[in-house]
């Protein structure tokens, strides 16, 4: 808790202190974003938007709350926004169908390949909320209560979300043990 007060003071001072705080959180935030969104480009956008939002609202941060939960909650909302935008554009593309120009051969395949990195395995298995829960739990060591603060749900819902995700992952591992 004392750390959060120090962080809050650093945030308010801005400048280098803000940057050093953000530097220390960049890798965990980026990792969570990649695991939720499934590709690095969108994850970078989510992280940048998160940092900008933190910077703009740094005066509003209440050090009584966990700083880590606060910034991951902002990141999670940014990721959900990006996924919604992508879903809308994908739906629009489906509606337009053949009217959209097709990318030239080779274009976009690189980014597809880059996006189909490791998280692609969990993208197909889990929902965005479940991916976030797993990334926070296994990747960052969040408890169910902390995950609920990030996801904006009750601790029960967070536990059940994590339960379902872990069940799906275990089932996948048992059925595909040869490929791992």
């Amino acid at each position, binding site marked *: 808790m004392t750390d959060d007060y120090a962080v809050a003071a650093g945030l308010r001072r801005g400048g280098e202190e803000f940057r050093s705080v953000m530097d220390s959180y960049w890798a965990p935030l980026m990792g969570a974003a990649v695991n939720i969104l499934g590709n690095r480009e969108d994850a*970078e956008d989510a992280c940048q938007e998160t940092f*900008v939002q933190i910077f703009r609202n740094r005066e509003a941060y209440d050090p009584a709350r966990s700083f880590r939960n606060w910034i991951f909650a902002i990141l999670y909302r940014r990721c959900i926004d990006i996924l919604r935008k992508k879903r809308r554009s994908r739906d629009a593309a489906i509606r337009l169908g053949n009217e959209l120009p097709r990318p030239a051969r080779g274009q976009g395949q690189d980014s597809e390949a880059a996006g189909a990195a490791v998280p692609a395995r969990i993208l197909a298995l889990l929902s965005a909320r479940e991916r976030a829960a797993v990334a926070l739990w296994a990747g960052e060591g969040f408890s169910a209560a902390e995950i609920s603060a990030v996801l904006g749900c009750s601790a029960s819902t967070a536990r059940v979300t994590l339960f379902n995700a872990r069940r799906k992952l275990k089932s996948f591992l048992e059925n595909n043990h040869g490929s791992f």
Partner: protein
Amino acid sequence: MDHSDGIMALARILPFASWKDRLLVRHAERCPACAARLATAEEARIFLVRIPQTGNRVWNPAALLGASEASVRPEPSRTLRLRPAWRWTAAAAGFGLAVLLTWSLVRSLSSGPGRTGFASVGRRTADAPAESRIGPHAGSGDLRLAYIRIDNEPARAIVFKPRDSNLVLVWAGRY
């Protein structure tokens, strides 16, 4: 098939997270057989991407901070964008409520008893004496507005008769 299969099946059909949490998750956390059906943190990490802390920084903090600090007027937040919409919504709701109240008042008055052929319009006061004369058109049952005067000067009159109602509303004002 052990009890874990039943637990997992129950996990799918129970409708509420609180029920699932109480009956299943907490049980699974304690029961070794059920816990074995869940991926451990170590197993879950197989699926996750880890970004090294010393990896290539893809964002430029200085530029990002500079852009944020340089923006005198930050991009309007969602709440700010919604504020005019809320005002319009509240105004529209108030107007709709006023129309509804007027309509219900008109309806209740039009169905009320004790209607006479004559009605006074306006209120005679020392400040704004007004007089008028309306009465039934001979034999037809229609109302005729003869005149409206305010301070002994002709006044502007607006007559309104709601549809499906016998009530006639008359507004009078100075020219």
